[in-house]
């Protein structure tokens, strides 16, 4: 071991865990100017998501959504990424934690390794990050594009060390490496270490260790995944055949009281991922594959998830069976037979399936418990970090925050929200860092515009990778003969530190002004070479890469001559395009540092406070006369917290904050301006005085409304009320409750219906909460809860069990035959069907409580969306930019959403999203100016015919016809897709970095020889 070294750089944040949560946190912190050390104990970052196929609710490929994030994380100057690293000791406190970090040896020098894979081919036994074939082996649970792009060596499994070291052409393998232990000081810590996935082996009846075709969901994801063990083919592990019938068994390891069956809470994400897996199975491998999901309740409570579920059922033809069967036998023909009795039927069925997927949930394993101990943070009985409703990402230890699965079971969107929220909280303890030295040290940029073209070509051999297939010398010679090429050479490993320096020096010495690298993929390496050009003193956009490795040598290994011929073509194309390259400037706009927060509920106040506490000036606009929103009507959370007290603290803090200007009784009436400098007008007070605010960012926290549909005699009979009404009654008139001998609660009243399709998410737990409160006052009361699916997510499931333990009866009803409620004098006559008894039950209830949930405030939301030009979902909630990866950002840059304005959620979730929104605002404003990159569309107004084609074509509604009668594209808004350029009939638009000249030049380059 090396001696512990102490580096004192205060003002850093430590992020533990590089999954979705950790990456989001680190990115937000870095973007708001904080220095971050992001550690992960595994060899690459990405966490669970890297092992998944496609992820709900968008069902898109994880690789295309994840990789940009990973490279962002790898690139960001403020992020110090350390893999194979764990925390081994912690002392100190908020503002100054002394943390000991131990990095296990990778045995590969990251600066040298080019991820060529030679070591893996020579010694597969000891090189990890192998897409192996055993779908149960942890080593294969890797994805082929990892960050960092390097392998790691497991010395313990190596037989021939000497040979291993020798096989690496770059000498990157370092068997003698020791663990590195350092002590560093951090102002704040964010824990995002995820959770483990439940191992179903102990539940012997499920046959996991007996039958190869019984797999966990994670294994099934691997089988579906294009980068998985089967190469993306759906195959049964036993015999490689394609399954025709697949069954999912839900809640494996979850929702159990006996530890033999796992843990008591609901894992929250597995209903959705099972549905997703079934959909993907049908979509990708054939609609005729029968998919059945065995469940107790389907818990699809997220935004749009209910529709996802209904579509799965009605359109994809996925079958849902209510039975938690554990009768699994192998049938003679190698299939797996399941025997079950659907809840609403009276005949048992035995049915054969080719594969059975166990929907296993999340657990906190011993290593995570250890981590919690090291940090001394409180955990709940199940090992998850303890937080509370009003501090959703704060642990019991000051300065230590938490995000993602480690806080409780959740999916990616919720993880991303918490990741941003935790970043926000951490910024309160760590001021923005001074600009990185590398930002300043750059030489001035040489103006190359007038210069004659001087193209330099550098061809990599990349060891055997390119050199082993292509005739590199002939390529170098070929390139040297191309027009304007003044230098062409072989650089061995182009991206190694030595070669990079050589290329930089050569550019300067030879006065090159265009550069082409013949190497690997621009996707992975262009940024490095762009930085290199900038360091060499010329504009970063003057370089391109001809993809000789991934798209030539690697795919044509068996026909080297043809491959070399193609290599020549690629270089010709590259040089032709390079000759057309122009220096480009990144586009920036200055930005106002004020923030507008619309809506003064818990979300709006929390966002405003978080921003103000970090030094930003906030205008908080509330249409009502007082702050507080819906939460004012609540008394207790399920966990027993006093909501009124919590809201009071928020209101007082908001009103006391100098940097927050509260505008109550204010109505927003107009909105205009450019990104970064927006103007919003409102009318305030009874006199409707007009006021205008200038702001750089906007947070919408306008909430949703308590629903109140006229169903089940609501509003017509005294004894029928909503759960919402119950809140104050239970606190203020407990004696009323003493008189009730029977109470019936009806769930999903006005939610999960065609008019209001979303699940309201809060009303199942509210019913459980109120049932327990009623019993506390009147233990004699008999309570029935009539439900469709009981949706007590995460730890709420424990309260559901507690309610049953205390005698609350839960009976499922079918929406097709809902309960009947009739007046019976002062009381009510209720009749419902009990599927378990197969009979109707009738009773006289003293009270019927309706779980009416919430609905978007249709009028207000529509008006607001119109003023701010923001899209809404079909249901009427604000629509975020990306449901999964950017759940707080609205599609237009600079607008964010928080709380129930986005979708139904609890107070805790509303506040988390508010803090997340504050974090996103900080990342935006920290830049002082908006950098829009260089890939933007430009209109040559002299050619524009004002035909409106681009106006209609742009996916983001950017172009408009300006006062001069020509199309105008605001670079601040353009996303750079180039669609408008492609569509414009007058060819008046060009997309910089990809303009037509460059693309056409490639074609000319390719066909030069033939047409010449």
């Amino acid at each position, binding site marked *: 071991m090396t001696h512990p070294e102490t580096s004192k750089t205060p003002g850093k944040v430590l992020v533990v865990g590089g999954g979705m949560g950790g990456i989001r946190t680190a990115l937000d912190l870095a973007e708001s100017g904080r220095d971050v050390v992001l550690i992960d104990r595994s060899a690459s970052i990405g966490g669970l998501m890297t092992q998944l196929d496609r992820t709900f609710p968008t069902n898109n490929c994880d690789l295309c959504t994840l990789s940009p994030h990973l490279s962002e994380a790898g690139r960001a100057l403020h992020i110090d990424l350390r893999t194979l690293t764990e925390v081994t000791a912690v002392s100190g406190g908020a503002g100054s934690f002394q943390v000991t970090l131990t990095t296990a040896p990778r045995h590969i020098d990251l600066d040298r390794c080019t991820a060529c894979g030679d070591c893996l081919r020579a010694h597969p036994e000891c090189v990890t990050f192998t897409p192996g074939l055993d779908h149960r082996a942890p080593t294969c649970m890797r994805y082929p594009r990892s960050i960092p792009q390097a392998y790691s060596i497991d010395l313990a499994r190596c037989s021939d060390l000497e040979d291993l070291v020798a096989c690496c052409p770059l000498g990157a393998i370092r068997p003698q490496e020791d663990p590195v232990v350092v002590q560093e000081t951090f102002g704040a810590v964010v824990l995002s270490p995820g959770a483990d996935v439940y191992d179903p082996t102990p539940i012997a009846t499920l046959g996991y260790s007996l039958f190869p075709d019984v797999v966990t969901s994670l294994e099934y994801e691997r089988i579906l995944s294009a980068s998985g063990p089967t190469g993306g083919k759906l195959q049964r592990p036993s015999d490689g055949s394609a399954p025709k019938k697949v069954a999912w068994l839900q809640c494996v390891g979850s929702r159990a009281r006996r530890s033999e069956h796992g843990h008591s809470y609901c894992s929250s994400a597995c209903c959705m991922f099972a549905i997703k897996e079934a959909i993907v199975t049908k979509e990708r491998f054939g609609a005729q594959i029968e998919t059945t999901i065995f469940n107790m309740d389907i818990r699809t409570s997220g935004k749009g998830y209910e529709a996802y579920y209904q579509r799965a059922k009605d359109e994809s033809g996925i079958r849902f069976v209510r039975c938690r069967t554990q009768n699994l036998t192998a049938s003679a023909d190698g299939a797996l037979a399941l025997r079950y009795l659907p809840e609403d039927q009276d005949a048992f069925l035995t049915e054969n399936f080719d594969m059975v997927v166990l929907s296993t949930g999340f657990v906190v394993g011993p290593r995570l418990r250890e981590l919690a101990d090291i940090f001394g943070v409180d955990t709940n009985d199940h090992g998850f970090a303890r937080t509370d409703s009003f501090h959703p990402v704060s642990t019991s230890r000051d300065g230590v925050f938490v995000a993602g699965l480690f806080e409780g079971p959740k999916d990616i969107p919720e993880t991303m929200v918490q990741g941003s929220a935790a970043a926000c909280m951490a910024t309160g303890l760590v001021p923005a860092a001074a600009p990185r030295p590398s930002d300043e040290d750059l030489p001035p940029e040489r103006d190359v515009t007038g210069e004659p073209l001087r193209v330099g070509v550098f061809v990599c051999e990349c060891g055997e990778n390119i050199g082993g297939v292509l005739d590199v010398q002939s390529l170098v010679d070929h390139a040297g003969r191309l027009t304007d090429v003044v230098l062409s050479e072989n650089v061995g490993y182009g991206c190694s530190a030595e070669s990079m320096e050589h290329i930089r020096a050569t550019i300067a010495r030879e006065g090159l002004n265009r550069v082409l690298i013949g190497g690997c993929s621009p996707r992975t390496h262009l940024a490095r070479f762009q930085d290199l050009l900038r360091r060499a003193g010329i504009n970063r956009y003057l370089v391109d890469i001809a993809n000789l490795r991934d798209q030539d040598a690697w795919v044509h290994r068996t026909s080297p001559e043809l491959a070399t011929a193609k290599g020549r073509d690629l270089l010709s194309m590259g040089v032709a395009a390079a000759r057309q390259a122009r220096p480009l400037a990144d586009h920036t706009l200055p930005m106002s540092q004020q923030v507008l927060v619309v809506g003064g509920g818990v979300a709006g106040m929390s966002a405003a406070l978080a921003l103000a506490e970090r030094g930003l000036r906030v205008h908080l606009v509330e249409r009502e006369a007082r702050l507080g929103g819906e939460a004012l009507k609540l008394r207790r959370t399920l966990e027993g917290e006093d909501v009124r007290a919590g809201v009071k603290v928020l209101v007082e803090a908001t009103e006391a904050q100098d940097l927050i200007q509260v505008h109550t009784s204010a109505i927003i009436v107009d909105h205009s301006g450019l990104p970064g400098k927006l103007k919003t007008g409102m009318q305030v007070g009874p006199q409707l005085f007009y006021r205008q605010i200038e702001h750089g960012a906007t947070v919408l926290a306008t909430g949703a409304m308590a629903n109140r549909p006229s169903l089940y005699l609501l509003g017509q009979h005294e004894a029928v009320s909503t759960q919402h009404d119950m809140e104050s009654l239970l606190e203020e008139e407990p004696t009323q409750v003493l008189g009730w001998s029977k109470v019936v609660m009806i769930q999903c009243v006005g939610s999960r219906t065609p008019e209001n399709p979303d699940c309201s998410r809060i009303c199942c737990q509210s019913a459980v909460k109120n049932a327990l409160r009623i019993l506390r006052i009147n233990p004699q009361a008999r309570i029935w809860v009539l439900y469709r699916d009981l949706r007590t997510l995460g730890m709420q499931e424990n309260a559901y*069990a507690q309610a049953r*333990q205390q005698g609350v009866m839960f009976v499922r009803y079918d929406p097709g035959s809902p309960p009947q409620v009739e007046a019976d004098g002062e009381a009510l006559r209720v009749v419902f069907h009990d599927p378990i008894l197969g009979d109707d039950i009738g009773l006289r209830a003293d009270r019927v409580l309706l779980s009416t949930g919430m609905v978007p405030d249709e009028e207000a939301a529509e008006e607001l969306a119109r003023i701010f030009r923001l899209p809404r979902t079909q249901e009427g909630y604000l629509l975020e930019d990306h449901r999964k990866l950017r759940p707080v950002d609205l599609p237009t840059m600079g607008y964010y959403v928080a709380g129930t304005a986005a979708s139904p959620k609890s107070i805790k979730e509303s506040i988390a999203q508010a803090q997340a929104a504050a974090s996103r605002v900080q990342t935006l404003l920290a830049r002082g100016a908006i950098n829009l990159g260089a890939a933007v569309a430009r209109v040559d107004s002299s050619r524009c015919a004002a035909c409106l084609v681009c106006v209609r074509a742009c996916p983001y509604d950017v172009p408009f016809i300006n006062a001069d009668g020509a199309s105008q594209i605001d670079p601040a808004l353009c996303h750079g897709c180039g669609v408008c350029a492609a569509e414009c009939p007058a060819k008046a638009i060009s997309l910089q970095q990809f303009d037509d000249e460059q693309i056409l030049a490639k074609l000319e380059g390719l066909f030069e020889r033939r047409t010449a």
Partner: protein
Amino acid sequence: MIDLEQAEVIPDMWREVFESEDIRFCFNCGSCISVCPASNADPPLLIRRLARMVLLGLEDELLDEDTPWSCVSCSKCEEVCPMGVRPFELGLAIRRWQVRNDETRIPPSLVELYKEGYTQPVSRALETRAAVGLGELPTIDKDPELLKAYQKMLMATDVVSNNDYMFKG
């Protein structure tokens, strides 16, 4: 239809039947019945349905149920029940409750057990035993004092003392 205002309904019947709160944790998941051999019988033994009857306190219906008696005591339901309801033991408890409320439910074998100690003629199977080269066993009838003590003990149990007419004579 079961009218909870009309039917014989005892709200706290579960306590009388099973004593333990375990039963109240049942969430009708169906694990137990999926593995139950006796769920193949007609009528099927459906433990979760019995649990529901107990919890609702449907006294009359439960007294009439024969299905608890078709259990093979394999206990697989106990193994698979995620909630620790102990369905097999619940079935036994229902039988006991029926026995307590309805003497015709008393298993006739109890009398044999009281008188001889065994459900089979263990002490009389001399020939069968001799045929395979085994002698007599020290069965309880060999020691009349002990048998008497055993019977005295049984007499101290509720089922025997409450129905002593069946056992005496």
